[in-house]
């Protein structure tokens, strides 16, 4: 235990920062030697180095967390702020699955679980995470074994089935925060239900962590989380400038801290730095792409395995994704988390997330974004792995055309598994979609 704790602290305070500094130094040396290449993109964001540092440190800490501190695995929509006062090292398997997908490793990581009879029709995040449990190596080394599993149904019901499997496999307690889906207005008994569950959660978290919650610490963390969401929202809003100082694809990567280390000063400091850099780029007229002619909205999760290729294909034709419903989801809680009512406000904030609300709300949110960011078109990623996000998109496409006169396309693919995307067919359709703007 003491040895693990020392390793954990070393990874956190010494090795992590050293490795990232070394990595940055090597990167700079490589850049010096490299001849500058023609690119459709604007200069890279300077904060990307800091992002790498934060996330490398996070995963490096994770390697030594089990046995040193209590480890909780949580879904991306879980109110993880409540776990931090118990000193849990919080792991986001979805974040890890996205890293695996970006490296195109989902097929081999999910293979062991598919061999056990789990269908390829299941969510690729879930398959990656379950497959990861059966193998030893992933792109981030290894994930620490969980002492506690926490899932929240505000993003989908799939997480319940997936975490049920994890709980069975790791034989650890599972906390389920069930957030009733909001049809129309949110009801008082829904908020009360979630608040009650948060109270129940603490009993289990106390038992696992052997610590009592300090409610003042929790309130402070909640404040930091609210501020983090606000800062992330400010970063996203810079996309309204013309040209947008970054691309929607950039936001998919810079989202990592608000997902993984939300509720920490480190997270907020990062987004202050990013916001300032984006504003500086606006003042200097620096765009995410060099020749922004058309502005697009992206709906649904990214296709992680194809982000760079996609970004290039669009940028070459002067198309920039200036906003994305997916990135926006983590900015939604900015006004909802309040210290006056730490549990009630947390309950409401986590129930009101985009995917936990009805079609009408989704359409209105998208229309508001389309107007605020002055988009010319939209790409709706019909994601085989995410039914709550995808069902209804065909009607949204029609409503976009009818109500806003905006062209859009529904593209069937997957957020993690490249085997479920027909590249040639997809690119042909997208090329035709882009050509239609010049008609």
């Amino acid at each position, binding site marked *: 235990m003491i040895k693990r704790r020392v390793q954990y602290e070393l990874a956190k305070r010494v090795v992590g920062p050293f490795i990232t500094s070394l990595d940055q130094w090597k990167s700079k040396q490589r850049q010096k030697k490299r001849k500058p290449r023609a690119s459709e993109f604007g200069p890279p964001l300077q904060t990307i180095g800091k992002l790498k540092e934060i996330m490398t440190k996070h995963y490096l800490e994770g390697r030594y967390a089990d046995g040193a501190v209590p480890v909780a695995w949580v879904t991306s929509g879980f109110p993880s702020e409540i776990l931090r006062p118990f000193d849990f090292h919080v792991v986001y398997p979805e974040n890890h699955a996205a890293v695996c997908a970006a490296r195109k490793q989902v097929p081999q990581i999910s293979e062991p679980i598919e061999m*056990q*009879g*789990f*269908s390829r*029709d*299941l*969510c690729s995040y*879930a398959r990656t995470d379950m497959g990861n449990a059966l193998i030893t190596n992933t792109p981030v080394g290894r994930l620490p074994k969980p002492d506690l599993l926490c899932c929240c*149904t505000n993003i*989908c*019901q*799939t997480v*319940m*089935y*997936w*975490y*049920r*499997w994890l*709980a*069975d496999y790791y034989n650890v307690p*599972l906390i*389920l925060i*069930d957030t*009733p*889906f909001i*049809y129309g207005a949110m*009801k008082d*008994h*829904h908020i*009360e*239900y979630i608040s*009650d*569950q948060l*109270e*129940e959660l603490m009993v289990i978290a106390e038992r696992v962590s052997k610590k009592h919650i300090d409610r003042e610490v929790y309130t402070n963390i909640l404040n930091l989380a609210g501020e983090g969401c606000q800062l992330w929202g400010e970063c996203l809003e810079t996309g309204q400038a013309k040209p947008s100082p970054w691309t929607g694809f950039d936001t998919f990567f810079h989202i990592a801290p608000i997902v993984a280390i939300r509720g920490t000063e480190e997270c907020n400091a990062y987004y202050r730095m990013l916001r300032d850099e984006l504003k500086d780029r606006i003042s200097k007229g620096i765009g995410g792409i060099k020749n922004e002619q058309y502005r697009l909205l992206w709906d649904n999760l990214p296709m992680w395995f194809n982000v760079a290729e996609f970004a290039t294909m669009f940028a070459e034709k002067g198309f920039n994704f200036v906003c994305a419903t997916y990135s926006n989801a983590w900015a939604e809680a900015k006004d909802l988390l309040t210290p006056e009512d730490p549990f009630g406000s947390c309950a409401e904030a986590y129930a009101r997330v985009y995917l936990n609300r*009805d*079609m*009408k709300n*989704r*359409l209105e949110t998208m229309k508001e974004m389309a107007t605020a960011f002055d988009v010319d078109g939209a790409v709706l990623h*019909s994601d*085989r792995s995410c*039914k*709550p996000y*995808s*069902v*209804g*998109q*065909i*009607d949204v496409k029609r*409503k976009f055309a009818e109500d806003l006169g905006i062209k859009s396309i529904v593209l*069937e693919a997957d957020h993690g598994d490249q085997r479920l995307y027909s590249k040639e067919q997809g690119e042909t359709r997208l090329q035709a979609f882009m050509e239609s703007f010049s008609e």
Partner: protein
Amino acid sequence: MRNSYIESQKAEHNRKVLAVLPIFYPKEILTAMNILAVEVWGPPGPPISADVGRIQTYVCPVVRNAFAFFEGGGADKVDGILFPHTCDSIQGLSGLVADFSSWKKEVFNFVHPKGEYRASTAKYLKKEFTDLAKNLERLTGKPLEIEALKDAITLHQKIEALQGKIAENRPCIDMSDMELYTVLRQGEYLWPEDYLAKLKEIEEKIESAPVQKGIPIIVSGIVPEPMSIFEKLTEAGAYVIADDYAALGRRLIKHDEAVNSDPYETMVKRYFSVAPCSTRSANMDLRRDHLLALAKKTGARGLIIHNIKFCEPEMFDAPLIRKHFQDNDISVLYMESELETELSGQTVTRLEAFVEMASSSRSSK
């Protein structure tokens, strides 16, 4: 047949009619409010309208067919639709029907809790029941009477007691699976008293000694479609001794306590007394152990997991259940349906081979 029944229920009993999507909903409340529930499990067969194209092909056929059915006018005789919050796909369907479809009648939601019994869950569920009853006033124009709810619970308890008796005595009932299931599934649309009468007819056929001679099989899945699975099982020399279909056995409530002075409290207890279901449970052990206990109690020689294509909750559970049964030396067959009208020849061959294999295994008792 259902349409003529719906019309007669409206004309003769002044009842409102709700189409209801799978799986769990408080039928007692509907009965107490004089509302006929007509369940929509697809319906099976090809989608009845081109609107099916508005839902992606990787979504379960129950949802796609139901949307085509509603948009194609198949449910025009009902007064509204009730969507239980079963899964992401039904949640999406509810949004589509309420916000984007040509459907202009009432849409209701029953957002039941997920996971096992907890103090928070019980408290919430009671409020969700009362909230639904309040919302249904929009349809009936009058509030739910507590005494009527108590009577409705008692009526449903009688039905469940009979269903339980039929399930327990399956080997002693001289009816084929097809005949039996044809009657049992009428509970999906008959008024409870009419259904009770049908069940009593089955009860009268219970013999004092077993009459079924085939290989006893347990079935699990969402809904037995196509129904010809039962004919093929009979032809292969097997019969269904225990049922865990979400449409049937999994909804059998085992709660026979007298109705509480607060009937909503009774309903909460009833809700948590049903068998574990992939769409609600957060505990794998419960479901696995329940199914194995059912197999052992009935002496089933094999398990058929008859899933609907793209049904995510079931797809997550199936491999674990299969392994658990195989570890206990009980044969398992996994098969998928897309709500087609007939089983494919390939599937029939698999069924026959499975029954042959199960027949050579020892009883699970």
